[in-house]
């Protein structure tokens, strides 16, 4: 579908706060200083699993400069991002479940005093056996990480069944079953978590590096037992989240509590190691894929089994569990589908949501399995994808409504960019190309807790100078949502984005937005902003029409000037229109809200997966594998992404590149490994390796536009779907290069070498097994 020409939408625009950040003027949470401010520090558990016998804080409290010490019993109310999994306390109560769990905290006049005070807190522990493998945890009734789990340490089992799965496998000409493992990864944002709390006049103000001010607001009220109207949450400039700041964290409650206790502002800033300990990153997944296809490659049935290592708390895990199953019915048509999943507790830092939430690791398994099946049957991998590609205006077997969809085009575009037909299977040994697809939601159809409010609300006010201010609860975490809101407002109002000021993520002054997660902000806050700006425009034009005595439909605003019949002689500016409207009755506003339509099935788990729109993507990778060392160099990565409409192509390309580079890191090097004993193997950016600029190939982005009927100006998501196809594209390319399949990620050169050696010894034997 072609989109209409627009004034600002579709033009590459530098982010509005870019210069501020480059100059160092932008104030992040750690930049904020208040008079009398104290430094807060947390004492963490050295044990992976232990009962707390006693905590003696007397010596710490006696230290000069210490203003308060806090322990878990002072804040016993449980919280958690999901109402069904409120299993955490701000500081451990009764027992600790991972190495690094916060146990006590101090507020002192400076950092050195606070750290010295931590050493003076005497905690007595009774160590318990600890479990680090979810497959073991599933059966260990003797070691209970949470007393509440019914079977061993299984937090939740999920089973989904759609269509005739047995019939589908029976009708298949070829069935292939394999196992896959994707290790944990973590977000590694450049800014560490930080919170600054002030309790003054009976009101708490918390500045925090959060992606979800609204959910944090609710959780603070609950845990601190304060009414919401006495709490204000402000998100200052934020240096990256990727899901790692997408839920309430211990330091936010602790800073608030210590501020209330001392009457002085308290700031807590995590060290890098504490960021690694807070985690909530990608769940390790032990996956089994059984895929049935006809001889021509048409998929007949899929059975996906998944064991998720949840670490020791719920976090987003129940949603991760369901996403890992629900998102697999797209972007390939699956006529019959069964999912069996388990989320299991272990004595590790909690797993949670990370960019591409839930779907990234299963996508690796499925898109590699699709290539394996294609190889078995002698079908081209691009061909098998096109044959099964989901089409626009269709419904998946698990009731996901697909509207705009340019998946086939995404595949064709990367295929042509990498010269697929000429090169796949035809390059010299050591060189290979591979491909994979993906899809992701543009915001979850359901809020995390039930409520009748819009998911996003926006208010726009106009001032007499001709500028407008957009008030939105959406949290710009560096992805550029403030700029997105300015583009939508500017386009709708017919003014330049530079005339738009965005005030966001302050619970006292901005209308509610559920936050930055599940790729929801462009679609939902963008739609709310579109509605608010439209309303404001209507108010302005009505005033002009009345003044000029013309019909309102004849007027429009273009480049800040009102255009219409009879006003050529004496042009009216946007500012004039505001003055006219204001003189008719006070301030000029527009408000808007967005609520997703009722979508999805009625089965248990149906709430996770539905979205008003889905993005689609395909990546093609070219690799060079060193035959003697097994080292994989990704030479090229071409990423196509159907994002509906690119509101700001510059920002969209950045998102797609960012997603692909995170995917490359997870493919080649990132492993959030926990040692026996519970210590992190790599709690630093030196040893937890994310790719540097020199480790990345030239990333080529192809933005594909399908013009979504419900998105703001046709836009859909692009920030998370862009990480989905990367891993399988590279793994499939490695197969093309050296003929080995990698069933564990991150891939290691050592494994590739070993597999190549094994492969050479059975070169003559045919691969795969085709059922008669």
């Amino acid at each position, binding site marked *: 579908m072609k989109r209409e020409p627009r004034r600002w939408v579709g033009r590459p625009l530098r982010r509005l706060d870019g210069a501020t950040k480059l100059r160092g003027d932008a104030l992040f949470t750690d930049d904020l200083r208040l008079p009398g401010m104290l430094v807060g520090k947390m004492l*963490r558990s050295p044990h992976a699993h232990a009962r707390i016998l006693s905590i003696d804080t007397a010596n710490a409290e006696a230290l000069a400069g210490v203003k308060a010490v806090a322990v878990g019993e002072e804040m016993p109310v449980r919280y958690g991002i999901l109402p069904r999994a409120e299993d955490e306390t701000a500081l451990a109560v009764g027992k600790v479940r991972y190495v690094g769990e916060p146990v006590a905290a101090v507020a002192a006049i400076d950092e*050195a005093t606070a750290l010295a005070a931590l050493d003076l807190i005497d905690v007595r522990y009774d160590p318990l056996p600890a479990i680090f493998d979810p497959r073991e945890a599933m059966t260990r009734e003797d070691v209970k990480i949470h007393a509440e789990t019914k079977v061993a340490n299984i937090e939740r089992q999920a089973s989904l069944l759609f269509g005739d799965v047995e019939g589908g496998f029976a009708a298949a000409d070829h069935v292939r079953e394999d196992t896959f493992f994707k290790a944990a990864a973590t977000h590694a944002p450049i800014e560490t978590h930080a919170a600054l709390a002030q309790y003054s006049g009976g009101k708490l103000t918390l500045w925090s590096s959060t992606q979800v001010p609204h959910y944090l607001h609710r959780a603070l009220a609950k845990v601190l037992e304060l009414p919401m109207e006495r709490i204000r949450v402000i998100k200052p400039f934020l240096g990256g989240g990727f899901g790692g700041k997408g839920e309430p964290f211990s330091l936010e409650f602790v800073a608030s509590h210590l501020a209330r206790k001392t009457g002085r502002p308290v700031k807590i800033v995590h060290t890098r*190691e504490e960021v690694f300990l807070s985690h909530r990153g990608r769940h390790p997944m032990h996956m089994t894929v059984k895929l049935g296809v006809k001889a021509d490659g048409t998929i007949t049935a899929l059975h996906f089994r998944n064991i998720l290592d949840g670490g020791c708390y719920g976090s987003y895990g129940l949603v991760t569990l369901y996403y890992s199953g629900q998102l697999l019915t797209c972007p390939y048509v699956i006529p019959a589908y069964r999912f069996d999943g388990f989320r299991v507790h272990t004595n590790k830092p909690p797993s949670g949501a990370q960019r591409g939430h839930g779907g990234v690791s299963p996508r690796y398994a499925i898109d590699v399995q699709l290539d394996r099946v294609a190889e078995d049957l002698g079908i081209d991998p691009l061909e098998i994808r096109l044959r099964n590609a989901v089409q626009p205006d269709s419904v998946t077997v698990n009731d996901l409504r697909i509207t705009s969809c340019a998946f086939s085009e995404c595949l064709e575009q990367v295929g042509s960019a990498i010269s697929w037909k000429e090169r796949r299977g035809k390059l010299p040994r050591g060189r290979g190309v591979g491909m994979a697809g993906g899809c992701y939601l543009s915001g979850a159809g359901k809020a995390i807790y039930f409520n009748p409010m819009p998911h996003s609300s926006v208010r726009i006010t106009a001032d007499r100078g001709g500028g407008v201010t957009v008030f939105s609860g959406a949290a710009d975490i560096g992805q550029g949502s403030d700029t997105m809101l300015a583009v939508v407002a500017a386009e709708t109002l017919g003014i330049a984005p530079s005339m738009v000021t965005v005030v966001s993520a302050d619970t006292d002054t901005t209308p509610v937005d559920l936050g930055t997660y599940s790729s929801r902000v462009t679609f939902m806050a963008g739609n709310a902003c579109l509605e608010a700006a439209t309303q404001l425009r209507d108010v302005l034009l009505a005033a002009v029409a009345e003044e000029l005595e013309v019909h309102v439909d004849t007027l429009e605003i273009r480049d800040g000037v009102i255009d219409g019949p009879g006003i050529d002689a004496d042009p009216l500016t946007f500012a004039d229109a505001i003055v006219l409207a204001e003189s008719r009755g006070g301030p000029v506003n527009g408000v808007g809200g967005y609520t997703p339509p009722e979508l999805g099935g009625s089965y248990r788990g149906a709430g996770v997966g539905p979205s008003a729109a889905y993005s689609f993507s395909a990546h093609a990778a070219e690799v060079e594998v060193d035959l003697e060392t097994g080292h994989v160099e990704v030479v090229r990565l071409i990423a196509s992404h159907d994002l509906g409409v690119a509101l700001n192509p510059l920002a969209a390309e950045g998102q797609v590149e960012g997603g692909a580079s995170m995917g490359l890191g997870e493919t080649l090097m990132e492993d959030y490994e926990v040692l026996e004993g519970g*210590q992190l193997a790599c*709690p630093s950016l030196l040893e937890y*390796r994310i790719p540097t600029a*020199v480790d990345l190939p030239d990333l080529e982005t192809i933005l594909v536009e399908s013009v979504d009927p419900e998105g703001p100006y046709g836009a859909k998501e692009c920030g998370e779907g862009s990480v989905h196809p990367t891993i399988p594209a590279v793994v499939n390319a490695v197969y093309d290069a050296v003929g080995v399949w990698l069933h564990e990620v991150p891939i290691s050169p050592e494994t590739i*070498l070993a597999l190549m050696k094994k492969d050479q010894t059975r070169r003559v034997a045919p691969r795969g097994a085709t059922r008669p």
Partner: protein
Amino acid sequence: MMPLPTFRLERPATLVEALRCLSETPGSLPVAGGTDLLVSMKHGLFDPPVLVNLSGIEELRRTNLAPGNVELGAGVRLATLRDDPELRRGHAALAEAAGVVASPLLQNMGTLGGNLCLDTRCRYYNQSAFWRNSRGYCLKRGGTICQAAPAAKRCFAVSSCDTAPALTALGAQVRLARWEDGALGLRELPLEQFYVEDGIERVTLRPAELVSAVLLPVTPGTRSGFRKYRVRDSIDYPLASVAAALRVEDGVLRGVRVAVGALASAPLLAVETMALLEGQPPDPALLAEAAELVTKGSKPVKNQASSPTYRRHMARVMCRRLLADLVA
């Protein structure tokens, strides 16, 4: 950010002054670029009462690249070594090694002497105080067992500096300076004698003694190079490295010196490899055979990323490729 412990900073202007400072306060440590020591201090691995900053000592930054008499001050920045056209021509292994230490930003700060004295590294040692307390302390710092190889009686922390194997292959000597009985004492020794293959002892420096300079022999016709294996192409410490220097004279190899890094607690001279090649024509099969011997003296344990087996394999592959490049 992790805070630094408190210390007094001395800023001597001369080498003698610096040595005096070091000898006057037991436990004091020298610091130059600070790229290694300050991180370790934040981790609680060192808590010196006094840091003696060597950056202001001009004599430590002096270099003499005159033919036949190359002398490099210990205070020379790694970036300088990386970029120097003379070194790149005559002592390529050193320039290449300096250019792959950490990242360009750290090469701007780090010095030759600092890199040579880099502490040995281990995943059970280079961690915060919190981490090591949780895990249990190791032989190298505060504990009674090696966390990487609990049955062992020694420390296997890895020599992770890049310039040391390069300089070993180039046949370098180090000049050491100390303050003793009110006088400056100097000694020079071959670099391989400067190191001790023990993760704790690691160098033969006496108390209050500094590396002041590196002396390089100049033999016309020498070709040299350095290869490093790491996961990322920047920032990372080596998981294995190889340096080689040789001449091709009248169709045979002369002056062959090969050293491996990051596979033991010191750079190791690959004497079997050297012996096999010396005086022989640079036949590809012989180079391959010699490269297979390069890891003979090393038995790394699992205390880094990657497995010991694979790190040794990488050293052999890099060695063969490097030798082939040098004789080409």
